[in-house]
């Protein structure tokens, strides 16, 4: 019930909300939990395994029971702790894990079967008969298990990521944290203060960046911290341009952990009934929210810290039936305070059980002399002491240490730069404590871990079955494995295992805490990097032109490349076939900007190329280009490309699109680490130059129309593999390379990227009389397969030079990267899968990449696998499907009929092994 006075809620702002469809009111400043308690709503959920009625246990982020489903529609979110939900107008919340209703939950029958569902249940049941697993057990378990349900539709909110640098990061804005922040700011340091609760006036300090609603969830190496700011969780809908949450990556030279302490519940029979709460939480509800969780309370404690709870209750309208102090003589602090409120103190007594139907109605105690007394009450405020919130101190694998005087773990070795203050350091807590981990006789209904329904009896069972190591205890009983990560359970569970095995707590150890401290939404970690913004998109310099031509684009790494240019009524195949035929019979243009271009200059440039490529470079003349093959040091092919010599000490290397970055990294590795004495520099010019391939029998005729007067591009002046500077379209300085991937007479024209679109248009205009077409990566791919050029599918990191028919390119005269290991006999074994072409015997059959190759009469088992199809396409030039494949002993088997086996796609037919060059094997078109 709401108290008439006090609290920091704003009574002038009334907020309407619903819980399970019923309407209630609260005040601004309430949490959902405090507002429910103010309305005398005690039952808020059903427990995970046994579906027992549960109420609110705590007041902070350690809450294990009050997990609600918040909001509806696309923003619906499960498993939200009611104690951390700031109330807002129109809030809708629903209880979880119950059917058909919270009050009458059919699954409560699980409680009757609790002996079956004891610890280890998962490992002992649903095993036999095994054949029922998929059809019966799994669907059953899925229906019965789990907490909460996903919204199932796309999240409409946006999230942000941001970086923050500071000298001092203070974690926690309680009294100790605020003092630490104030002191640090006074030295002129850059201070950040994070606190998981809503904004508090006393934390808004001069010279301090204060981040309320922000949980520091993880400590990482190098002084890095992860934090999540709940920017708009307290609003029905985020404001315009507001993210829902923000993930902060904080780099701090030092940090101060002022995270306070988390209270331990008392363990007794039915200690999970709604109305049994942590004593400190009762105090918080009274003092901060002006809410009494009930009318008549019993206080069950074992230390002097609970005095403040007694005072808060005593000064409110709550009646206090008794103080049950487990300590033999209680203490003067408690006795005097209780006397001042005329409340009896039972020293050396324990609550043995609570009773009530769906909320606590009374308790039974055992006195020091063994007598039994009953009390009526609707609140049990229980505290077995406080555990310093040391989690963050152990994220880097350091362990907390046990301190007997406070019967709690305190920070041990700390992460570099971190200091701990206040209750988190074990200061000012558990005065005069006598540990009581569970009330003697606590049975199968005395809960240790509320969220995962783990009882004191489960811990005894684990010990009985030999799971006594703390890591086994955790995994066997699931203690500490729920979304609350055992914040109110771990130490108690550990201490009970210690007692059961006759060891001390420090001997028994502690499980490791790992980030995140509280659950973090995946959206926050993703920030803006979702959907199409998951990675950046790179556009070619002819993108606008291609779009205007109706291109369909394909993602190639981060690039968008024109894949094909469909005319009205064409699908991808029709467009591609038309483009291929148009190029081979006339002329076409294709953007090839995306292939990596690396500018290489320096006195030792040629020597450097000799060492990174397998073939020879010192004899390449200025004005010429050459194909180059690059190996990894283990002898496998890494990449290929063409490198042109533009000047005495000036080269431009091309790479495949996919490997541009990797090759650049490799060149820098060789230059900086392997041969630092070579004088050579590199820079990427992929983006500097728009590069367009002009290919087909009419290519020269088109080219002649766009090169400036005085530029000679005749076959004599500019033969196959020539390269050099050129001027185009009235003064544009560019470069011309006579290279061909298509096997046609072809050139690559490079102009500064700003002219990419305009060059494409100029080429189309110049080529109009020849029927010029734009062609995309599909047609490009068909033509290179027709010519047997290995590309990405063949350069898959598992092929050697010999596999690809490039054995002759391995120089015998010089050192190059990969030389030694490429000479391993196993890499030169002709029995290896080696490059061949494939032609279906029945021209209607379709080759597909990935299909396996077998001898025509072999049984289709793995032992008979002789290779696979790497690249396949329909060839309009030849009128049937063709493929490039790796086949054991390939080149020796031309003419053989083999079996192409593709069971997943229902392919099983015969094909002829042929040389990989299907079209113009003499290369006569290249030299036209």
């Amino acid at each position, binding site marked *: 019930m709401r108290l008439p006075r006090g609290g920091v809620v704003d009574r002038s702002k009334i907020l309407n909300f619903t819980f399970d469809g019923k309407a209630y009111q609260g005040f601004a400043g309430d949490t959902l939990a405090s507002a429910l308690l103010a309305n005398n709503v005690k039952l808020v959920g059903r427990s995970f395994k046994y579906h027992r009625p549960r109420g609110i246990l705590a007041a902070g982020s350690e809450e294990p029971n009050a997990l609600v489903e918040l909001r509806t529609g696309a923003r619906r979110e499960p498993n939200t702790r009611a104690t951390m939900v700031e109330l807002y107008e129109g809030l809708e919340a629903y209880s979880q894990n119950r059917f058909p209703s919270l009050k009458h939950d059919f699954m409560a029958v699980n409680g009757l079967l609790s002996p079956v569902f004891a610890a280890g249940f998962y490992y002992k049941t649903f095993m036999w008969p095994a054949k029922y697993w998929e059809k019966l057990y799994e669907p059953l378990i899925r229906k019965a298990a789990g907490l909460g349900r996903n919204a199932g539709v796309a999240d409409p909110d946006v999230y*942000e*990521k*941001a*970086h*923050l*640098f500071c000298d001092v990061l203070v974690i926690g804005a309680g009294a100790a944290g605020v003092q630490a922040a104030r002191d640090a700011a006074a030295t002129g340091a*850059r201070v950040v203060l994070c606190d998981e609760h809503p904004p508090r006036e006393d934390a808004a300090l001069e010279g301090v960046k204060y981040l309320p609603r922000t949980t520091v969830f993880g400590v990482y190496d190098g002084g890095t911290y992860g934090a999540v700011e709940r920017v708009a969780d307290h609003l029905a809908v985020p404001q*315009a*341009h*507001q993210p829902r949450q923000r993930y902060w*990556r904080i*780099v701090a030279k030092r940090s101060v952990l002022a995270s306070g302490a988390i209270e331990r519940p008392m363990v007794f029979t039915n200690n999970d009934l709604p109305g049994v709460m942590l004593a400190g939480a009762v105090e918080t509800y009274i003092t901060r929210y002006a809410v009494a969780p009930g009318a008549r309370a019993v206080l069950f404690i074992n230390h002097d810290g609970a005095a403040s709870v007694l005072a808060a209750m005593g000064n409110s309208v709550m009646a206090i039936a008794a103080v049950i102090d487990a300590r033999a003589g209680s203490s003067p602090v408690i006795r005097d305070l209780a006397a001042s409120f005329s409340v009896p103190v039972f020293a050396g007594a324990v609550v043995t059980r609570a009773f009530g139907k769906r909320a606590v109605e009374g308790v039974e105690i055992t006195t020091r002399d063994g007598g039994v007394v009953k009390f009526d009450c609707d609140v049990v405020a229980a505290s077995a002491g406080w555990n310093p919130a040391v989690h963050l101190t152990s994220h880097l694998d350091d362990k907390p240490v046990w301190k007997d005087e406070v019967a709690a773990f305190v920070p041990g070795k700390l992460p570099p730069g971190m200091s701990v203050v206040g209750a988190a350091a074990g200061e000012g807590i558990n005065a005069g404590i006598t540990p009581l981990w569970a009330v003697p006789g606590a049975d199968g209904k005395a809960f240790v871990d509320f969220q995962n329904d783990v009882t004191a009896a489960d811990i005894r069972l684990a010990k009985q079955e030999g799971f006594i190591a703390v890591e086994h205890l955790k995994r066997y009983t699931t203690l500490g494995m729920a979304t609350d990560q055992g914040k109110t359970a771990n130490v108690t569970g550990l201490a009970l295992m210690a007692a059961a095995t006759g060891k001390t707590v420090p001997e028994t150890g502690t499980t490791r805490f790992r980030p995140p401290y509280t659950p973090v939404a995946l959206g926050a970690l993703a920030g*803006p*990097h979702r959907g199409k*913004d998951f*990675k*950046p*998109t*790179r*556009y*070619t*310099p002819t993108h*606008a032109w291609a779009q205007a031509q109706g291109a369909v684009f394909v993602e190639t790494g981060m*690039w968008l490349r024109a894949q094909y240019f469909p005319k009205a009524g064409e699908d991808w195949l029709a467009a591609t076939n038309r483009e291929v035929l148009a190029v081979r019979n006339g002329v076409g243009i294709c953007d090839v900007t995306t292939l990596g271009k690396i*500018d290489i*200059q*320096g*006195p030792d440039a040629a020597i450097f190329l000799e060492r990174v490529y397998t073939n020879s470079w010192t004899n390449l003349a200025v004005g010429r280009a050459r194909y180059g093959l690059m190996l990894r040091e283990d002898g496998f092919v890494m990449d290929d490309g063409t490198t042109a010599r533009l000047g005495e000490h000036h080269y431009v290397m091309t790479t495949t699109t996919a490997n541009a970055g990797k090759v650049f990294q490799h060149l820098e590795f060789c230059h900086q680490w392997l041969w630092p004495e070579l*004088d050579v*520099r*590199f*820079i*990427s*010019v*992929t*983006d*500097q*130059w*728009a590069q367009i391939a002009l290919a087909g029998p009419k290519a020269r005729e088109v080219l002649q129309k766009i090169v400036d007067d005085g530029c000679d591009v005749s076959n004599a002046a500019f033969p196959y593999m020539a390269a050099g500077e050129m001027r*185009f*379209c*009235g*003064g*544009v300085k560019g470069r011309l390379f006579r290279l061909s991937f298509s096997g046609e007479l072809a050139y690559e024209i490079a*102009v*500064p*990227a*700003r*002219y*990419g*679109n*305009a*060059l494409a248009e*100029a080429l189309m205009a110049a080529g109009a009389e020849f029927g010029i077409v734009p062609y995309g990566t599909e047609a490009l791919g068909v033509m290179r397969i027709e010519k047997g050029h290995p590309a990405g599918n063949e350069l898959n990191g598992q092929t050697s030079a010999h596999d690809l028919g490039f054995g002759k390119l391995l120089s015998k005269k010089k050192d190059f990267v990969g030389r030694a290991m490429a000479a391993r006999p196993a890499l030169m074994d002709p029995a290896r899968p080696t490059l061949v072409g494939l032609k279906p015997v029945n021209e209607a059959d379709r080759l597909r990449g990935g299909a396996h190759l077998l001898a025509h009469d072999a049984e289709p088992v793995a032992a008979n696998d002789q290779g696979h199809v790497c690249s396949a396409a329909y060839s309009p030039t030849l009128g049937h499907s063709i493929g490039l494949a790796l086949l054991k002993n390939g080149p020796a088997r031309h003419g053989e009929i083999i079996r192409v086996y593709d069971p997943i796609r229902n392919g099983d037919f015969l094909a002829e092994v042929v040389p990989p060059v299907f079209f113009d094997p003499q290369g006569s078109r290249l030299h036209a």
Partner: protein
Amino acid sequence: MLEAEIFPFVATAMVTPEPVLPLVSLAAFHGQTAALQAALGVALPLTPKSVRVGETLYLWSGPDAWLVVGGAVEALTTPFAAMTDQADGRSVFTVSGPHARDALAKLVPIDLHEQVFADGATALTLAGHIGVQIWREGEAFRLACFRSFAQSLYASLIEACREFED
């Protein structure tokens, strides 16, 4: 002559797409940094800083490497360094205004506070997932990325500045 493409980026209060500027990358050959400096008549920065000479800005861009913004070296040839035109290889954006640093904090993983990134400072780093060279000119920041990333970088900058622009 061919028509040059101008990206249709709209300038906002905080984000200004810069027009194509003369840009040249310089990478000194072994032991030739001093000779290069003498040839240019410029004390090229040897740490991540920039040096302004008239209309031209010389930005440190790696060990013995610089990015020269402005026309002074366009026509130059030198035996002491590899020179490469980058006018078309980069796109440049300016982020300005009192919240420039807060907006960039969403993208750039280095400390841009004036105490550690003062006027004349520069860095090679990331903006989101895009490699950039960032430098400070007074209260404003300039970012240069590979030209093919321009649309993505522009969109990221606009998104980062959105909350401050209303």
